């Protein structure tokens, strides 16, 4: 066992190697010189004297090695040496090294990027206390199981008090608020949460500056807490904002605190800008707290330690049943559920599809990495064969197989690390690209791709794994090369051994197959996205601009508000280029869509209650947005506050509530307004896709503005004008009549692509599409490299064939045929795999058949064409060889 002194001396020697090396060299020289002199003195001729002296000394190299082993820590010595050698080897073959690194970089980069996305959106727990016990508590229809969008405050209070399985329960609403900072004249519409008093304390979020909202603030606190990003962006991180007053929805509030940097609210992938207590939420002051039929709140809770999800669910259902019995007009037929928070991003509806989504995308990433690794194995194998000679020589010079393998492994690990480093760059670039692509403009989407040490560790581990995996087989084979065999066969058997060929062919087939699967998955998602763009929406979103505004922040009377809206639309309609304009209360996939339980007249049994979403509109709405009225009549002037309440329902509502009957003339009641009037159906409109981006049909009805008031209006304007100009004009008109009113402007297309809408399909197809492209490139590069090396290794054979009379074309076809056969088999296997995978993904593919022929054919053709091209180029090169040169090639 080495003593400490020895160890430290050796460690120091590691650094002073060069001087010790030269010392040994001179000592050896001196020794041999002295021995030579003695030999001369003994009578030998000079040359013989020297030769005998050298012989007597023994094997210099062995001595040097022993010396060095003594001198320093051999493990690190060898590692360093192997590393230097590996670097030199890679430097000498730039094409190979570059290709290998690129392939790995793409594979690892893609892998890491996907992992970042999935992690930040679906896997990473919220940065709050006990995030693993956090659950969402959505209400649902006990009849259909469909989730209700929100709950009322009294309901929340009851659940909070009565559910024993929760250690705490909080509620918040997703809203936009009009914020005016004290020193600025512009009012901004910001995404904010109105929260209960225990929101921050339950989540364990402590203030960065000032303090957070507390239970005392809930009802009457005229305060706000700013989100970190809002504070940094709009206030430049000025700490003196604490205690200052700003304006929220037209009312002054005091800024009491700033949230910490890592807290972005409880809505995954959205940045919550401002937090205000529930008391600040605009609305009827009394109803807000007591009306059980109001909604607007989302609830989260912590499970008590030791309580299981199932127990909590049962407990919640008991309370729901109790409430249904106590308040039948509103809560009859309403049940509740408990889901882990992580599975319910962005909402509870996704919980069942969550595992599938995560598996599909992580699976995609792994396939890409797999293809990249296979590629690398091939490249290394091919290269090992080219270097077989060199390795054989080294073996004969005394290098043990272990050493050889270690050196080759070092090379592939080095490649792996370089690939990993490059891959990290690729992933950083691609995630920032993803974060910028297609951002919906209504909510501040935050795809957090900030550098995470875990991701780096993961990438590093993956690259080491890839390097080792890729290096093991070739290194093992290469180190067993025997010099004798090599010299005599001049590498022919070794480069073209049948086992090697089969292995390589298998790799090519794997790559083609994997690439095909990637293309199919990517293609299918792209088709889904296409479908959503081509979907029959039931209305025409083209050439329509939207302006969303909320007068509740201006503190006007209802009369004055109506006057403003009337004047505004008159002015807008008069603008040149404007075809038509009309108000509605909601926009497609907007944030404040309205829904309620509906009961048809005469059918008051619980099981007949169904959810209906609704909107307030003007009569011109249908023609502006081009929703066809199929039956009955449109709203008219005669439908006013004094006439019977009327509604226009959609086909789905007619079908569900009055199947096999004419719905026109029938009446129904909105359960959110218990004791309210019966509403008569005067017309049936075509189904429109405004709430569910999957195109699922939902019962929907329209109520006239003349009978329903809201301070919140969406102005829909159809015009042939350029959208930007139109928006600017609309804004100008709004501010001419009501300066300081916050207006959110977008086109209807934008609204469709927003966070609640098709955005998710964009994201999915972007990711899957990128994966497919990367996998495609990687596979192609692999095939090209492989055929190249194979052809290069068979140069001699080609020479022989040509010398024996083969035409260039025949040689070309020989290689092409080989390549084509491999590609064909790969496609066949890939197709089988793809069918299987597509079938698994069926639930995610909205509106597209998993066996979509267009996708399959397009993918097959692309892979085949590209792969054949990739074989053609090196084949042509081989066929072009001068037979004389080829014959002489070893």
């Amino acid at each position: 066992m080495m003593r400490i002194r020895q160890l430290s001396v050796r460690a120091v020697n590691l650094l002073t190697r060069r001087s010790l090396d030269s010392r040994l060299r001179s000592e050896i020289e001196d020794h041999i010189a002295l021995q030579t002199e003695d030999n001369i003195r003994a009578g030998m001729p000079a040359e013989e004297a020297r030769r005998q002296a050298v012989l007597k000394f023994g094997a210099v190299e062995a001595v040097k090695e022993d010396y060095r082993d003594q001198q320093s820590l051999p493990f690190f010595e060898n590692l360093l040496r192997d590393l230097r050698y590996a670097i030199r080897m890679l430097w000498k073959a730039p094409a190979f090294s570059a290709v290998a690194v690129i392939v790995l970089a793409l594979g690892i980069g893609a892998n890491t990027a996907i992992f970042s996305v999935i992690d930040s959106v679906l896997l990473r727990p919220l940065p709050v206390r006990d995030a693993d016990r956090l659950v969402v508590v959505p209400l649902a229809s006990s009849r259909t199981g469909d989730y209700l969008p929100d709950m009322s405050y009294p309901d929340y209070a009851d659940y909070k008090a009565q559910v024993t399985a929760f250690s705490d329960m909080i509620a918040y609403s997703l809203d936009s608020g009009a914020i005016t900072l004290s020193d600025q004249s512009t009012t901004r519409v910001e995404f904010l949460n109105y929260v209960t008093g225990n929101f921050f304390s339950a989540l364990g979020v402590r203030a960065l500056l000032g303090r957070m909202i507390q239970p005392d603030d809930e009802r009457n606190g005229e305060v706000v807490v700013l989100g970190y990003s809002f504070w940094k962006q709009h206030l430049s991180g000025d700490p003196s904002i604490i205690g200052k007053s700003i304006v929220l929805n037209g009312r002054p509030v005091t800024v009491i605190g700033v949230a910490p940097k890592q807290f972005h609210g409880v809505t995954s992938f959205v940045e919550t800008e401002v937090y205000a207590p529930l008391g600040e939420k605009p609305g009827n002051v009394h109803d807000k707290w007591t009306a059980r039929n109001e909604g607007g709140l989302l609830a989260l809770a912590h499970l008590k330690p030791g309580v299981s999800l199932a127990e909590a669910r049962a407990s919640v259902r008991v309370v729901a049943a109790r409430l249904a019995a106590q308040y039948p007009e509103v809560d009859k037929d309403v049940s509740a559920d408990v889901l882990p928070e992580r599975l319910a991003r962005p909402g509870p509806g996704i919980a069942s599809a969550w595992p599938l989504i995560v598996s599909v995308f992580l699976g995609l990433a792994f396939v890409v990495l797999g293809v990249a690794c296979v590629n690398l194995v091939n490249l290394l194998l091919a290269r090992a064969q080219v270097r077989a000679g060199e390795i054989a020589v080294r073996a004969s010079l005394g290098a043990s197989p272990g050493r050889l393998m270690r050196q080759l492994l070092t090379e592939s690990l080095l490649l792996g690390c370089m690939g990993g480093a490059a891959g990290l760059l690729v992933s950083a670039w691609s995630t920032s690209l993803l974060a910028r692509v297609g951002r919906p403009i209504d909510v501040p989407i935050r795809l957090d791709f900030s550098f995470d040490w875990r991701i780096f560790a993961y990438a590093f581990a993956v690259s080491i794994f890839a390097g080792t995996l890729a290096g093991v087989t070739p290194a093992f084979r290469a180190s067993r090369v025997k010099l004798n065999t090599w010299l005599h066969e001049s590498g022919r058997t070794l480069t073209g051994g049948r086992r090697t060929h089969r292995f390589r062919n298998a790799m090519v087939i794997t790559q083609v197959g994997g690439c095909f699967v990637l293309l199919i998955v990517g293609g299918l998602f792209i088709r889904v996205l296409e479908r959503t763009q081509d979907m029959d929406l039931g209305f025409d979103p083209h050439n329509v601009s939207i302006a969303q505004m909320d007068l509740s922040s201006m503190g006007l009377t209802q009369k004055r508000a109506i006057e403003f809206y009337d004047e505004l639309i008159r002015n807008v309609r008069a603008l040149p280029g404007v075809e038509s304009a009309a108000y509605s209360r909601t926009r497609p996939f907007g944030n404040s869509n309205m829904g309620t339980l509906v009961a048809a007249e005469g059918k008051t049994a619980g099981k007949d209650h169904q959810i209906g979403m609704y909107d307030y509109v003007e009569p011109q709405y249908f023609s502006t947005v081009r929703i066809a009225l199929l039956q009955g009549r449109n709203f008219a002037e005669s439908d006013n506050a004094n006439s019977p309440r009327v509604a226009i329902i959609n086909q789905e509502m007619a079908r569900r509530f009055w199947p096999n009957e004419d719905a026109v003339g029938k009446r129904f009641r909105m359960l959110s307004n218990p004791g309210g009037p019966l509403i008569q159906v005067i017309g049936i409109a075509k189904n429109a896709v405004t709430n569910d981006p999957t195109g699922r049909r939902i019962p929907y009805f329209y109520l006239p503005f003349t009978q329903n008031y809201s301070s919140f209006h969406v102005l829909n304007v159809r015009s042939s004008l350029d959208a930007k100009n139109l928006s600017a004009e609309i804004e100008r008109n709004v501010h001419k009549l009501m300066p300081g009113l916050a207006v959110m402007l977008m086109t209807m297309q934008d609204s469709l692509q927003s966070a609640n809408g098709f955005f998710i399909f964009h994201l999915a197809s972007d990711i899957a599409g990128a994966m497919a492209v990367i996998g495609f490139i990687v596979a192609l590069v692999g095939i090209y490299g492989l055929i190249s090396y194979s052809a290069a290794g068979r140069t001699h054979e080609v020479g022989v064939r040509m010398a024996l009379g083969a035409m260039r074309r025949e040689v070309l076809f020989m290689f092409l045929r080989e390549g084509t056969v491999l590609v064909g088999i790969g496609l066949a296997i890939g197709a089988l795999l793809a069918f299987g995978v597509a079938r698994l993904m069926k639930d995610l593919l909205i509106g597209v058949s998993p066996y979509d022929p267009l996708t399959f054919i397009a993918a097959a053709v692309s892979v085949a064409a590209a792969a054949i091209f990739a074989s053609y180029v090196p084949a042509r090169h081989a066929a072009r060889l001068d037979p004389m040169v080829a014959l002489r090639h070893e």
Partner: protein
Amino acid sequence: MKDKTDVLQGTLALMVLKTLDVLGPLHGYGVARRIEQISGDLLAVNQGTLYPVLLKLEQEGVIASEWGVSENNRRARFYRLTSAGRKRLQAESRDWQTTAEIIARFFAAKAEDLK
């Protein structure tokens, strides 16, 4: 269990120490010649194996080295015994003596003595 190289190294080390003790500071070649003379064929070939041993002894601190000038005006590295080396030499000599005595007694013992 020491293998052959270790035994050889061990005895070689001892021989180096004793040589330096007897002849005083000496360069590598001189040590090799002396050992060759005395031990006969042990170091007839592969004199180079001496140098790793010299390095090891130096690392252990029992010998020290420095550049000097040899008899024919060549630069050479000279090794000398340190005080620690002297102590080691004494200890090891004692050990060898003891070992040799025990072995001798065993070989001298007749069958009857071992009953």
